[in-house]
């Protein structure tokens, strides 16, 4: 291989065969290159008069932004196969990069396209990428990698494989709608959004469109599309209510009842919001024995007068016919 400067104009940016990183050049890298130049050479493959980037996409993009004309490059000998070059690109990143699921999907898809067998991919790469070493993982990742329009969002959202699997079970047009709705949410919220929509869709045996046009949901969807602040979170709350009607309703009644109870001092009443327990927890702070005695006495009085009965009633509520 030969180390030499190459012109950025000589790079064929349309040829992304070795690219799997979905990170873009950021301000820090551009600033650093503006000040110090590109220190670490990229790796390229010669293709006629042009070069194909093997490693260093982010650095090259930043160099372009920083106004560089030339960058240092290692030009690989022509005998290297695409598979060898892609392996080189992978292992150059592997020790220092925490790949997202979207990047892992691209890596696996490309290894297969460059000629590795599924057995070799399972044996060599899946465990190293912290993925289940099974054929069906490869199938899922290849399916995911084919959605190139969705990969940047999946990458930014740092999705887990379970979220991706659910996402892929939606129809193609539904997937686009989901990504739009989740755009302003963090990765946990995106995962929850997909989970709730999947559950409702399957429970009601309807299409996603039916759920998104339901009376309570439709205005919230509209608000998300208009990029109104907090609209995504409000949509999540409404979907939770639809998915967990029994628990939501009892919690709503509990909260309403709690607001009616005037507790002494700084005491607090709490309960298990999953409703697994029917007990109430009372907590308060007291600095002296006398202070404690006063609060306990007042609490006793509340209990005696039956003020808490409504809470116990709700926590022991029986479902009728």
């Amino acid at each position, binding site marked *: 291989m030969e180390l030499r400067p190459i012109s950025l104009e000589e790079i064929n940016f349309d040829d992304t065969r070795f690219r799997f990183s979905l990170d873009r050049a950021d301000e820090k890298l551009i600033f650093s290159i503006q000040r110090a130049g590109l220190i670490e050479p990229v790796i390229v493959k010669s293709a006629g008069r042009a070069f194909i980037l093997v490693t260093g996409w982010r650095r090259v993009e930043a160099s372009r932004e920083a106004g560089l004309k030339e960058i240092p490059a290692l030009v690989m000998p022509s005998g290297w196969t695409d598979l060898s070059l892609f392996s080189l690109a992978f292992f150059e990143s592997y020790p220092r990069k925490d790949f997202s699921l979207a990047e892992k999907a691209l890596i696996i898809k490309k290894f297969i396209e460059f000629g590795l067998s599924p057995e070799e991919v*399972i044996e060599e790469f899946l465990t190293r990428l912290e993925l289940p070493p*099974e054929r069906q993982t490869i199938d899922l990742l290849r399916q995911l990698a084919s959605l190139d329009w969705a990969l940047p969002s999946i990458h930014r959202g740092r999705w887990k494989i379970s979220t991706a699997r*659910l996402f892929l079970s939606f129809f193609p047009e539904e997937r686009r709608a989901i990504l739009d709705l989740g755009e302003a949410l963090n990765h946990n919220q995106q995962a929850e959004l997909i989970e709730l929509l*999947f559950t409702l869709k399957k429970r009601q045996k309807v299409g996603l469109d039916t759920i998104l046009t339901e009376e309570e949901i439709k205005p919230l969807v509209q608000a998300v599309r208009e990029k109104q602040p907090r609209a995504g979170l409000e949509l999540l709350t409404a979907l939770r209510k639809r998915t*967990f009607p029994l628990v939501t309703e009892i919690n709503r009644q509990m909260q309403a009842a709690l607001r009616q109870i005037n507790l002494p001092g700084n005491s607090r009443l709490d309960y298990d919001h999953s409703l697994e327990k029917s007990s109430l927890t009372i907590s308060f702070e007291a600095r002296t024995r006398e202070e404690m005695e006063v609060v306990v006495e007042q609490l006793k009085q509340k209990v005696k007068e039956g003020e808490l009965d409504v809470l116990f009633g709700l926590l022991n*509520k029986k479902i009728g016919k």
Partner: protein
Amino acid sequence: MQQNNWIKKIYVNRQVENSPLVERIISRLKPTPVQLVDRLEEIQAELRLATDPIAESKRVLFLTGEKAFIRPCPCSPGAVPCGYWTVDLNLNCPFDCSYCILQVYFNLQPLTIAVNQGDLESELDAFLADTRNNLLRIGTGELGDSLALEAISGQASFLIDLFRNKKGVWLELKTKTAAINSLLTSPASENVIFAWSLNTERIIKMEEIGSASLAERLRSAEKAVERGFKVAFHFDPIIYYSGWEKEYGEVCEALLKKIPLAAIAWVSLGTLRFPGKLREIARHRFPRSSIYEEEMVRSWDGKFRYPRPLRMKIYQTLTDIFKAHDAGDKLYLCMESPEVWQNFSKQNKKGKQLASPFFWHK
């Protein structure tokens, strides 16, 4: 599951290749191909390549030796334990139930038969000598169906003979099959109990793939009773769906009509519960099933369950039916919280309360 032709291949652990049981099983399954292996991992490497490794693991048989067979049933942390013990001569199950926990519990485990069953005899003697006080219940249906592989392995028959007339212990053989005829040729034993997992016809058809119908299971139970055996039933998992009340009610009524109360040793009730990982696997493997999409909460042990008020309603509904037939005292709950147990005991049990809600405990 009377036919054995679903088995594509037999793997034999080289260490047990000369076992007489291995020879018998291979000859029963002729002409199924046989391959000697040194380690389970060799089989797992092949299973990994299948598009559905769990389904594939149910189509290959592994004959091997096990070091120990008797273990306490793990129950669920925080649930009221019933003190059950398991004896596992087989691992994995040829049925493919959408709710089966083995999909998570096993990692590429082929249908496995322990052929060194003779070792169980000494283990059992030591175990029984070491346990006192309570009457023990021990069963084989935790890591696989007790009878589904009987035609191949004869393990249930072996166990019945081993446990026959042993004092202080009940052997329970839990199944979703109707494959009981061969076991009814030998005389009944008071401490051997055949048990059926029961569900509504709709759930059996949709979710318990490969298993016997409800009518076949009840008919088998009748036959066992006719031969003098005691029987038990497990409504587990009870699944909530539109129409559950009527359909589970019909199953209870059918059971109580066909089986005399005196022959019923116990009946357990347990609603659907599962760790999150199972839902992930099952949604992918059973896209037509919607049992995972009802309202569920993450409960005290991290598993998903129906909300407590709904579980209590389900238990109450079934309990009322059993009580109407004077069979309320046959019931117990499986993997439930003290909270739910308390409610159940209050409405059903006389005398013994939560300290020891199980009637087989002294």
